[in-house]
């Protein structure tokens, strides 16, 4: 059962991920991203992280990609891009380096922590298996307890970003007489 779910979800994630990179149409790429996010949500469910799965769908698929699509549609860039022209010369070699680096890091992490990965169910907190709401309890204890400062600082950061955006996009209009 778990294997079947894993294979299907992994296929969703990979197809979506490839779609994001390879589809030349921005809207199709964004839709592929949704497929990937759903695949990750399925993975979360199969690992009993129901809350994370729901939040993944609500926040990422439901809000963030909607905003992506919004921007794509409103700016009118919803046409096929010509990939031949390169506006920013350095980004392709840089992308190759970063990509290889990430692959290397993930491989290194898996190799060094092989013994933990190999043990089935290592690091699982016992009450999480019996109490259906314990997922949420554990998460909220760590977010609003152990890491409350980091959490609050993040929210301040977001507010700063919003206020800054409003301030930057706001044009001070000349008085109505001059604008006539």
């Amino acid at each position, binding site marked *: 059962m778990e294997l079947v779910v894993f294979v299907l979800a992994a296929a969703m994630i990979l197809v979506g991920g490839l779609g994001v990179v390879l589809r030349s149409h921005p*809207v199709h790429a964004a839709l592929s991203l949704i497929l990937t996010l759903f695949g990750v949500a399925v993975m979360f*469910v199969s690992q009993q992280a129901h*809350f994370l799965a729901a939040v993944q769908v609500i926040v990422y698929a*439901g809000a963030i990609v*909607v905003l992506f*699509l*919004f921007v794509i*549609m409103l700016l009118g860039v919803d046409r096929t891009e010509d990939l031949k022209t390169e506006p920013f010369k350095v980004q392709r070699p840089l992308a190759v380096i970063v990509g290889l680096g990430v692959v290397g890091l993930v491989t290194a992490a898996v190799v060094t922590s092989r013994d933990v990965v190999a043990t089935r169910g290592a690091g699982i907190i016992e009450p999480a298996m019996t109490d*259906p709401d314990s997922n949420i309890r554990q998460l909220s204890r760590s977010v609003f307890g152990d890491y409350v400062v980091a959490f609050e600082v993040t929210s301040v950061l977001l507010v700063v970003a919003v206020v800054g955006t409003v301030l930057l996009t706001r044009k001070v209009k000349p008085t109505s007489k001059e604008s006539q």
Partner: protein
Amino acid sequence: MNNPTSILGLDPIAIGDLIWAPLVIILLKVVVIFVLGLVATMLMVWFERKAIAGMGNRIGPNKAGPWGLLQTLADGIKLFFKEDLMPDRADRFVFKLAPYLAFVPAFLVWSVIPLGGDFSNGKGGIVTWFGHATRVQLADPPVGVLLLLALSSVAVYGIMLAGWSSGSKYPLLGSVRASAQMVSYEAALGLSIATVILLAGTLSTSGIVGHQSSFADWHVVSTGVIPFIIFMLAATAEMNRPPFDLVEAEQELVGGFNTEYSSIRFGLFFLAEFMNTITMSGVIVTLFFGGPQGLFNIPGIPGAIEGSIWLIAKVLVFLYIYVWMRATLPRFRYDQLMDLGWKILIPTSLGWFMLMAVLRLSRDENWNRGLVAIVAAVIILGCVALMSTAVKVSKANREREGAMF
């Protein structure tokens, strides 16, 4: 780890080995809920047309079947045989995908609404069918209510992509309006649900119903009505129903996001819209009105069936309210809609949530009741004053800069 509970939810029937009998019961539930959903939607369309006709002093559908009951079926068959058009400039794949993205989430909401069962005396809504304990509900995942929010956020895609993929101006405008509206009201929707979760202490829908065992425990009473009103308004906006139906404002946008759709693809949007009305009424009843829990025992009817009767009665009340609102209220203007959502509903629901949290904490910690009430009232008044000043200042600024509204 390899426990099917993780996927099928907390239904006691899904715990343990899945042998034939439970599997058949689950399949039976799926089929029954599917058929029930379609039939209920069919009747809902008839009910809405008939009720609006009555309010408008007309007769309404009266030709197909007794009292015109089969009118929706006739319309459905007609839609099936209509030509399926696709605009030249449409994005073919997305155009075909969009109706399903609208329709499937509408249907899936049914799976987490408790449709009956005996919740009295702490039985938790578990009934016994053919010797197997189960719930009258397709799935009871631990994240129940969040699943509803997730589905409503997926439903945005159906409308948004339908408008965009049509490759035409009015549908695009309609869908941009729709998605802005749905994303804005989702916040108020979530915050008013949070108040309910705060009191119930669980996310699972059957747990929330089980928590409302008497009238004083119904969340509409125990959360103090305000979250219910906010939820009702936000849900109406979320479904794009009147008076918040700017998405398909005929005078401005031809038909909104579904202008270019015809045949059964249009039928799916239509079906999704009406099914959303029913499921949203079901969600309101589940969250605020005790779901299948009744006010008194109906004599002579076993507990499990009684629950379903109560649920249907309560849902019918809300369906009527939605039809009533559609027939009587004029459509909002777009800036009024956004003002209502961002400047009234979201601050109110956030403030109310914090108030409920403080009251809860003061009860748990045995704080002085009177002192807590006074401090809370002062803070609320301060916040209201601050908010209204901010709104006034920004309005004055806009007027000074010569904006239109």
